[in-house]
């Protein structure tokens, strides 16, 4: 069915190839810097023309990328909780995105400055004191700080055995990040066992913190933009969007690494198809929760709720809203029906890109129409430039981390098992 038959020799070759540190393509770092500069210029120009737009785009991107970066690590936690091994080969590539979370913590501080443009309609009185600006920011800062700590800890624990194994074999020098991560190295067996134990104990914690903390984040910084809108589904949509975009990011990153690392060998045809199926499932689930919110609001037709939808679908924002729907659901759903596409890395990555754009547009549509004193459907180069800037800000810590660590969780027993049993089927 999957067209590959791996012999034990092939497996051991793959294991050898996987166990190395690979440098990302040479153009990546300069490109990321250029992106950041473009973003800074766009943000500056935006502040001069229409500060609401600049801050709105900043907030939308902040929400999207913060959730995405942690979701990258949460995927690992999910694989661990589920005991799934199909995703082992994509987990490091994706969880590296977690390096952005500390930066997100800093960007939250920047958002404080944008408060007058974004959150001027917050009313602590009407929300039982929940939307009290200093409290909100303090609360969210704690959420992000703990999230960053959990991500850091997870990455540390999962990187350590891999780096140590390479260092023990003399294939990696113990300096810089490797030296830092390998302090008090206790030998391969012990470290492996510790990591397994850590994953077992902490994966549920990571998942829970992510679900609860990011739900609060969704309410505080996203739903609150529209002061009368209340939806119990809202955090769920945010959550599943993040998961969706993490799988999408994985599919794109596989292509990003394809030239400079043996990604295409290690991530087999079966995993590519699984990734395609996951993306497909995510887009369907995304559509389901989005629809379930819409349907209940449509049926009840209560003004505070309906206004949220009408503003986005029946005004100048409608075009963008439809684009969002096509990108996050309609296009991925129909494209991934095609088997040929689902079996092709490029095809899956293209669908991932489309889906990611859709989720980003959803964040954008959450935020922009709710910004006070902003005309309908004002978007353009400023927003694009700020988004490009965020790509750069997310890429920089990712590239910094990934050029220093092995691209695959080589000491993870389930990763080995995944490689060994990849060609097996009934």
């Amino acid at each position: 069915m999957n067209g590959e038959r791996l012999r034990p020799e092939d497996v051991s070759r793959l294991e050898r190839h996987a166990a190395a540190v690979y440098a990302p393509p040479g153009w990546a770092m300069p490109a990321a810097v250029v992106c950041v500069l473009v973003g800074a210029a766009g943000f500056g120009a935006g502040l001069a023309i229409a500060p609401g737009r600049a801050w709105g785009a900043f907030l939308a991107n902040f929400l999207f990328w913060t959730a995405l970066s942690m979701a990258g690590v949460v995927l690992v936690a999910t694989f661990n909780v589920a005991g799934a091994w199909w995703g082992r080969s994509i987990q490091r590539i994706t969880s590296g995105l977690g390096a952005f979370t500390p930066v997100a913590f800093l960007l939250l501080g920047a958002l404080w400055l944008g408060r007058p443009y974004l959150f001027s309609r917050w009313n602590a009185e009407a929300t039982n004191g929940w939307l009290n600006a200093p409290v909100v920011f303090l609360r969210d800062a704690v959420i992000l700080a703990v999230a960053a700590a959990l991500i850091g800890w997870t990455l540390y624990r999962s990187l350590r055995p891999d780096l140590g194994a390479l260092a023990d074999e003399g294939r990696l020098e113990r300096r810089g990040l490797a030296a830092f991560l390998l302090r008090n190295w206790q030998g391969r067996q012990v470290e492996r066992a510790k990591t397994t134990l850590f994953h077992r104990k902490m994966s549920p914690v990571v998942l829970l913190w992510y679900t609860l903390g990011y739900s609060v984040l969704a309410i505080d910084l996203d739903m609150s933009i529209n002061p009368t809108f209340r939806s119990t589904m809202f955090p769920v949509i945010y959550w599943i969007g993040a998961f969706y975009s993490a799988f999408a990011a994985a599919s794109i990153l596989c292509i990003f690494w394809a030239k400079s690392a043996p990604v295409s060998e290690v991530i087999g045809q079966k995993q590519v198809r699984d990734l395609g199926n996951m993306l497909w499932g995510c887009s369907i689930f995304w559509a389901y929760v989005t629809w379930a919110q819409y349907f209940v609001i449509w049926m009840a037709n209560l003004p505070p709720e309906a206004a949220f939808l009408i503003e986005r679908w029946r005004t100048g924002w409608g075009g963008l809203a439809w684009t969002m729907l096509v990108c996050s659901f309609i296009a991925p759903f129909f494209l991934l029906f095609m088997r040929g596409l689902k079996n092709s890395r490029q095809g899956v990555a293209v669908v991932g890109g489309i889906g990611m754009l859709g989720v980003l547009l959803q964040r954008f549509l959450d935020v922009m129409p709710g910004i006070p004193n902003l005309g309908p459907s004002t978007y353009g180069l400023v927003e694009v430039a700020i988004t490009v800037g965020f790509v750069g800000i997310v890429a920089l810590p990712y590239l910094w981390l990934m050029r220093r660590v092995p691209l695959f969780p080589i000491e993870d027993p389930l990763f080995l098992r995944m490689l060994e049993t990849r060609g097996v089927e009934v």
Partner: protein
Amino acid sequence: MTTNGAAPQGDVYKQVTEDVLRPMALRGPWWYGGLALTATMVLIGAYSEFLQLHYGMGKAGLMHPMMWAVYITNFVWWIGIAHSGTLISAFLYLFRAPFRAAFSRAAEAMTLIAITTAGMFPLIHLGRAWRAYWLLPYPNERLLWVNFRSPLVLDVFAVTTYFIVSTLFFWLGLVPDVAVVRDRARGWARTAYGLAAVGWEGRDKQWKHYLMAYAILAGLAAPLVVSVHSVVSWDFASALVPGWHSTISAPFFVAGAILSGLAMVLTLLIPMRATMGLKQYVTIDRMDQVAKLTLVMGLVVSYSYFSEYFVTWYSKDGVEITNLMNKVNGTFAWEFWLMTVCNCIAPLAFFFRAARRNIPTLFIVSILINIGMWMERFVIVAGSLSHDYVPYSWAPSGYHIKPVEVGICIGSVGWFGFLFLLFCRFLPVLPIAELKRDILLEEREEHAVEASAALREGHAQPQPEVG
């Protein structure tokens, strides 16, 4: 018997077949006792329904504004249990979960039986059950059609579709196994099983189309179950009643359905594995995995409760808040707290490995969740209706469930149990072909792992191809 060490012994397969078919020959006292007990319960239910039909709906505790109470609670509860069976089976199939085979058949049977049970409640609830056909797209005497904008009518579509598709899914899964039973049966049983097996012989062409059809059916059944319980949730959520109108209700109901279904699977399988000699297949490891899934679902359900309370508090909406307080600290307080303890606290036991692997604990927690889910449906249905916008229509605190309603509840449990016992007796309780397939897959995987290990340790022999 084996070619290259990867093929399972024929004896193993024979053993699997014998083990799974053995319960069909068992007719111990537990089986007859169970049959007698459940039949009595059905009679109690039938008598209660007779009283209600004869004397009218006054026999039940229903009164304005609580026209939806126990019966609709039962409908939602049973349909929740019904939903999770196919859902568990279809989703685990799509995710290729290795522990599916231990549960799928019983879960699917549970679905079918629970859906017939659930399907009776709208009719019982109607009072004039003979008017049920008005729900179908059929013009009444004024040539009015049904209102397709109402989730209640959509529910008819959803539940009917669900019943048919679940039946097909169940039957399709049974085909190869029923063929085995057919080959051994004699007389009328041979004819009956032969008809069910439609002439299955395990030819490659049959398998090929079979696998495709099964995958499609699983792919269709998985979103179907989600949609059906979502539509049930919209029966409530699309109304303006405080406590009902909530956007999260669809996934929340679905999660609740999975939780109650997993609990019911545990409740049924624990005695089954003990009495039918299936411990070898429904192992502690499998139980552990289901317990983990139960824990996850318990957390999702708790999250949904909490998000509803939070948004109620956050919105400062007086009506919503008094409605909630009427549950927390008012007429429905004990049901509310029972629900919270059973659905939010009890599953937390499964954070501990020891609890997940201890059969009595599993059984007790599963029973608690079953109770908790019933209470949840009751608190949502009755609790919300009893306290909405106009104080005039607040239900008197003296609302009581009447004996007729209790009798019908007992009857429904009996009906479910009765049919399930028949299932255990007449059909293979585990999917035989799939168990064998899992054994083969496991052996092939082990073989691949061993071959790699041998190579890594340097004494590599030329290995036959694997896979």
